[in-house]
C-alpha cells in the first residue's frame, strides 16, 4: 500500500504518549489562544506528536510571528535579486552568468550554554542554507558580541565560540574571512553568535526548496537522527535563565567531516538533475523542513517515521520529528531516480532513505508504520500561525539617556595627554586587533582571499576565471541602536556599505540578523520596529535590498536584554582586481585626505564608554544622502587609480582610524603627520574621538584630483596630512597643540590587548570551569 492511497482517519493518541493537559501545553510554549487556534484548525484535540510539531513550527524561531509585519516594510527588490527573503538564502546575480547566495543566522542561545558546539553548529547550519541553494560556499563571516573580557566566564565563552567556529569551518574547508567582535556588559549573560555564509554558483544552478510533483519520493539524506537538539527551536524562543544550563542537551553536536561529505554530495545531487528540491533539516528538524517544502510547493506530504534512519532504538515519532541532529538534508527526488540518488550518497559514504512522498491530497501527514500519528489540513500548519503586533513604547530611561548632554562630561586629568586617551581606545577589546581570533580561522583555503582579515575594511574574495571580486562585511553598533534605534539601524547599514566601498566594491545587497530582547516587552518591540525602519531607510537610500536573514528575539538574561543588535551582512562587487584597496598607509609622501568632516558629537561613543564608563547621548547623525555621495566619490577615486589606502572612521573616531592606518600591519608600521587645525572651533576630543558618520581616510599621491572628485559629489573633503613612512610616529596637531605618539606604543596597545587578556592565568580559567562543570561525556 502506498502512502497516498491510505484513507484519512484522524490520528488517535499513541500508546505511551503523555496525555494533553494544560500544563503540557504550557510546557510547549503555546499560549491558551494559540492552543485554541490549533484545536480549531484540527477540529479535535491534538495528539502529543501534533502538539510537539506545532510547538516547534509556531515557535518564534520558525514562525517569525512577532516580526513578520515589520519585516514586510523592508525593501527586497532590485533587478539583480534572483531570490529574496523566504528561501534558505538570498541570491543575487553579479554578471558573467554568476550568482551569489548569502545568508546570516544566529546561534545565540546554544552558544550561551555550550559555546564550542553552539558556535560550531551555527556555522554548520548556515553552510547548509547556502549549499542547498546550489551554491558552493566560498566564505564565512562571524559577528560576535560578548560581555566584558574582564570576566573569566566571558573569556571562557569567547574562547569556546572562536574555537567552535574555527574547528568547523576549517575542517569543511571554507575560509572564515571577516566579521566583527564587540564587548559590552549588556551581552554578559547572553552573547551573540551570528554566522554568515557566502556561496557562488552559475545562475542556472539555482534550486529552490519547494516540494513538487505528486508521487515524488521524499528522501532523508546524511547523518542519522538522534535524540540531540530536541526542541532547540523552542529553546531559542525564550529568555535565558538560570535554568538554561539544564537545557544544554538541547544544544546539538556538530560533525564537520560529515558536513563536508554532505556538501559535496548535495552539490553533486543538485547538478545531477535527479532531484527537484532540497532543504536543510535545521531548526525543528524534519518537521520544519518537510512542512515548509510542502507549503512552498502547495502540495501535501506524507512521512513514515519508521523509515527515518535513527541512531538509537526506541525513538518516538515525537523525538524523530523534532530532533535537531546535525548534517541532515531532506530531498524531494524525481520518481524513479531513487537509485541514482542513493548512488551519489553512497559515493560519499552517506545514506539516503525514502521516508515519504509528495501527495495530491492537501494534508501534512505523519505515520508510524500504518498508524497515523499527526495530520494537519493543507499547509495551514505553516500559514495558520498567529501573527502579533505587540505594543511598542520607548523606554523612558533610554529617552533620558539620549537627552543627556554628554559634551558636559568633565575630562579626566589623564586626558591632558591625548595620546593616553588614544592608547586607552586602541587597547579597548572592541577596537583592538582581532588577530587572536582570526589566527584560529583558516583564512586562505580555496585560494581566493585577496584581502585578509586585518588588511582592509572588508574581506575580498577574488572570483577565479574573471577579473571580479566580492567584498563582504558584517556590522552593527548596538550601543547606537540602544540609544536611538532608528538612527542606529540606519548607521548599521551605512557603515557596512562604507566598509565594502573602502575595499573598492559597489554595495549590492544585505542579509540581516536581528538580535533583540523579548518582543512582548513594549520597549523591546519599539527598538525592533524602529531599528528595522532605520535599516529600511538606509537600504532604500543606498540601493541595497534585503535578501533574507534571521530574527533572534528573547536575547535576555536575568540581568536584562542585550543591546538591540541588528547585524548587517553586506555584499559588494569589485569590477576589477586593480580596484582592490586596503586600509594601511603604504607610500611615503602620500597625501592623507579626509572625506567627510568631524562634528561636535560624542554620544554613544567608544570614548565615553571606555574612558568615562558612560553610555549616553544621541548617537551620531546619519545623513543617508551624504553616505551615498561619500561612497560614490570614494569609488570614483578608487576606480581612477588615485587611492593607495582607504579606511572608514567608526568606533574611536578619527584618531583611532588614523592610528589603525599607521600600525594596523604590525610588521610594517607607517608614520604620518596630521593637522586638524581646520576644526579648532570644535572641542579637541570631538575632533579626535567623536564618531561622526560618513567619513573615510584616504591616502593618495594626487590629493587635488581626489578633492575635485569629492567636490563634484558635494562631499566635504580636506587634505589633513602626509604619510611619513619612516618617522616612527603619528604626529597630530589639534586645538592649537601638537602631540607625538610613538608608533611602537600605539602598536603595542592595539595588537597586544586581547592576547594579553586571554593569557590570564590558568588558575582563573580552572575556577570558571569549576563554576560551570562540563558534562563528562560530551
Amino acid at each position, binding site marked *: 500500500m502506498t502512502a497516498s492511497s491510505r484513507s484519512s482517519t484522524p490520528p488517535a493518541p499513541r500508546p505511551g504518549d503523555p496525555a494533553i493537559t494544560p500544563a503540557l501545553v504550557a510546557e510547549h510554549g503555546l499560549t491558551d489562544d494559540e492552543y485554541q487556534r490549533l484545536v480549531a484548525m484540527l477540529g479535535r484535540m491534538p495528539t502529543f506528536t501534533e502538539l510537539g510539531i506545532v510547538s516547534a513550527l509556531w515557535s518564534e524561531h520558525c514562525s517569525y510571528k512577532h516580526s513578520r509585519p515589520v519585516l514586510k516594510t523592508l525593501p527586497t527588490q532590485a533587478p539583480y535579486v534572483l531570490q529574496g527573503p523566504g528561501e534558505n538564502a538570498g541570491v543575487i546575480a553579479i554578471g558573467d552568468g554568476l550568482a551569489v547566495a548569502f545568508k546570516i543566522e544566529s546561534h545565540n542561545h546554544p552558544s550561551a550554554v555550550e559555546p564550542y558546539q553552539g558556535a560550531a553548529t551555527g556555522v554548520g547550519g548556515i553552510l547548509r542554507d547556502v549549499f542547498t541553494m546550489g551554491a558552493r560556499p566560498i566564505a564565512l563571516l562571524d559577528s560576535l558580541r560578548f560581555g566584558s573580557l574582564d570576566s573569566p566566564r566571558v573569556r571562557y565563552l569567547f574562547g569556546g565560540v572562536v574555537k567552535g567556529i574555527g574547528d568547523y569551518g576549517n575542517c569543511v574547508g571554507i575560509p572564515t574571512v571577516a566579521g566583527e567582535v564587540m564587548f559590552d556588559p549588556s551581552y554578559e549573560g547572553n552573547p551573540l553568535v551570528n554566522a554568515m555564509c557566502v556561496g557562488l554558483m552559475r545562475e542556472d544552478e539555482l534550486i529552490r526548496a519547494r516540494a513538487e510533483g505528486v508521487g515524488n519520493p521524499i528522501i532523508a539524506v546524511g547523518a542519522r537522527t538522534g535524540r540531540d537538539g530536541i526542541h532547540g527551536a523552542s529553546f531559542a524562543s525564550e529568555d535565558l535563565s538560570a535554568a538554561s544550563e539544564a537545557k544544554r542537551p538541547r544544544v546539538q553536536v556538530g560533525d564537520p567531516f560529515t558536513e563536508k561529505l554532505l556538501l559535496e554530495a548535495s552539490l553533486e545531487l543538485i547538478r545531477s538533475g535527479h532531484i527537484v528540491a532540497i532543504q536543510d533539516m535545521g531548526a525543528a528538524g524534519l518537521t520544519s523542513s518537510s512542512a515548509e517544502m510542502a507549503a512552498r510547493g502547495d502540495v501535501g506530504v506524507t512521512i513514515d517515521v519508521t523509515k527515518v534512519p535513527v541512531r538509537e532504538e526506541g525513538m518516538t515519532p515525537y523525538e524523530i520529528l523534532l530532533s535537531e541532529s546535525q548534517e541532515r538534508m531532506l530531498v524531494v527526488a524525481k520518481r524513479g531516480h531513487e537509485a541514482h540518488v542513493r548512488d551519489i550518497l553512497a559515493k560519499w559514504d552517506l545514506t539516503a532513505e525514502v521516508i515519504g512522498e509528495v501527495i495530491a491530497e492537501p494534508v501534512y501527514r505523519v505515520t508510524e508504520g500504518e498508524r497515523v500519528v499527526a495530520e494537519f489540513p493543507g499547509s495551514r500548519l505553516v500559514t495558520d500561525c498567529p501573527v502579533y503586533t505587540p505594543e511598542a513604547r520607548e523606554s523612558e530611561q533610554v529617552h533620558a539617556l539620549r537627552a543627556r548632554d554628554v559634551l558636559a562630561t568633565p575630562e579626566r586629568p589623564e586626558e591632558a595627554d591625548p595620546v593616553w586617551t588614544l592608547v586607552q581606545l586602541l587597547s579597548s577589546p572592541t577596537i583592538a586587533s582581532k588577530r587572536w581570533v582570526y*589566527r584560529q580561522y583558516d583564512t586562505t583555503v580555496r585560494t581566493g582571499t585577496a584581502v585578509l582579515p586585518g588588511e582592509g575594511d572588508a574581506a575580498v574574495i577574488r572570483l577565479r576565471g574573471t577579473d571580479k571580486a566580492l567584498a563582504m562585511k558584517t556590522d552593527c553598533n548596538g550601543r547606537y541602536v540602544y540609544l536611538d534605534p532608528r538612527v542606529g539601524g540606519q548607521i548599521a547599514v551605512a557603515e557596512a556599505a562604507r566598509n565594502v566601498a573602502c575595499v573598492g566594491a559597489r554595495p549590492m545587497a544585505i542579509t540581516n540578523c536581528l538580535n533583540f530582547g523579548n518582543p512582548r516587552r513594549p520597549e523591546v518591540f519599539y527598538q525592533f520596529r524602529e531599528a528595522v525602519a532605520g535599516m529600511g531607510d538606509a537600504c532604500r537610500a543606498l540601493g541595497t535590498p534585503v535578501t533574507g536573514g534571521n530574527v533572534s528575539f528573547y536575547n535576555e538574561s536575568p540581568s536584562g536584554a542585550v543591546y538591540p543588535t541588528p547585524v548587517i551582512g553586506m555584499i559588494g562587487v569589485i569590477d576589477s582586481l586593480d580596484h582592490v584597496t586596503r586600509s594601511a598607509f603604504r607610500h611615503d609622501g602620500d597625501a592623507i585626505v579626509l572625506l567627510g568632516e568631524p562634528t561636535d558629537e560624542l554620544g554613544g561613543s567608544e570614548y565615553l564608554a571606555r574612558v568615562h564608563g558612560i553610555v549616553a547621548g544621541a548617537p551620531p547623525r546619519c545623513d543617508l544622502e551624504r553616505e551615498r555621495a561619500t561612497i560614490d566619490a570614494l569609488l570614483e577615486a578608487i576606480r581612477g587609480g588615485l587611492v593607495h589606502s582607504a579606511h572608514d572612521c567608526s568606533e574611536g573616531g578619527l584618531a583611532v582610524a588614523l592610528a589603525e592606518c599607521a600600525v594596523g600591519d604590525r610588521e610594517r608600521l607607517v608614520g604620518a603627520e596630521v593637522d586638524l587645525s581646520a576644526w579648532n572651533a570644535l572641542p579637541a576630543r570631538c575632533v579626535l574621538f567623536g564618531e561622526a558618520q560618513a567619513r573615510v581616510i584616504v591616502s593618495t599621491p594626487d590629493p587635488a584630483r581626489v578633492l575635485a572628485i569629492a567636490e563634484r559629489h558635494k562631499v566635504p573633503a580636506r587634505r589633513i596630512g602626509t604619510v611619513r613612512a619612516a618617522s616612527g610616529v603619528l604626529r597630530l596637531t589639534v586645538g592649537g597643540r601638537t602631540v607625538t605618539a610613538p608608533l611602537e606604543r600605539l602598536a603595542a596597545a592595539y595588537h597586544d590587548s586581547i592576547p594579553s587578556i586571554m593569557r590570564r592565568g590558568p588558575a582563573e580559567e580552572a575556577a570558571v570551569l569549576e563554576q560551570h562543570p562540563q558534562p563528562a561525556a560530551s
Partner: protein
Amino acid sequence: MKFGIVVFPGSNCDEDAYHAVVDVLGAEAVYLWHKAHDLEGVDVVLLPGGFAYGDYLRAGAIARFSPIMQEVAAHAQRGGPVIGICNGFQILCEAKLLPGALLRNAGLQYISEMVRLRVENADTMFTNRYEPGAIVRMPIAHGEGRYTADTETLDRLEGEGRVVFRYVNAVGEPDASGNPNGSMRNIAGIVSAEGNVLGLMPHPERAVEDVLGSHDGLALFQSMLARVSA
C-alpha cells in the same frame, strides 16, 4: 607532466592544488579518488591538505589505510615523486613514507597565518628553482603541525640535507620567535632518504599568485616541472 591529486573524504585543498598546477603552472592534473587502485599514469602524486576522514583518531591515521595509499607507496618505492602538503604531510608520516610525526601545535591553537621559510636545500627535485638559503613566504593553516622525531632521526635528516624548509623569523633566523607551532629545530618540510617524497606543513599551492599575497610557492612546482620533465 601530469599530477595526480588524491581526494580523500575530507580533503579540502584538492581544488586549490589543481588550480595551482593546471591554471597557474600550466601542467596537467587529474583527481585520484581514494578508493581507486589506479594512478592513471601520473608522474607526480600530490596528497592535498584538509581533514581526511575528519582527522578522527589522529590526523592521517585513517587515511593511510585508503586503497589508493598502496599505489602511492608503490609509486614512491619506484622513485616516483610524491608531495604531501599539510594534511598530506601528516598522512605520509602515518604511512611511514616519511619519518617523524606532527603533533598538536605548541600553543594548542589552530594557526592560520603567513610564515617565512628558509630553503635549506635547493638541490632537491622540489626546490631546484629556489636560491639556496632563500627566504620565502607561504601560509600555514593547521592545528597539528609540530614536527617531532627522536634526536637520532633529526640528526640524520640534518646530516643528509633532508630538512628542506625551516621556519624563520623576520630577519631569517630559525629561532623560537620564527617558529609558529613548536616544531623541533623549526622544521617545516622534509624529504625522504631517496629524495623523491616531500612533506611540508606550509601551503605552497596557496602562494602562487600575487593576488594571494605571495607567489613564492610557485617555484616548488616549477622545480618539479624542470626535474621530472627532464
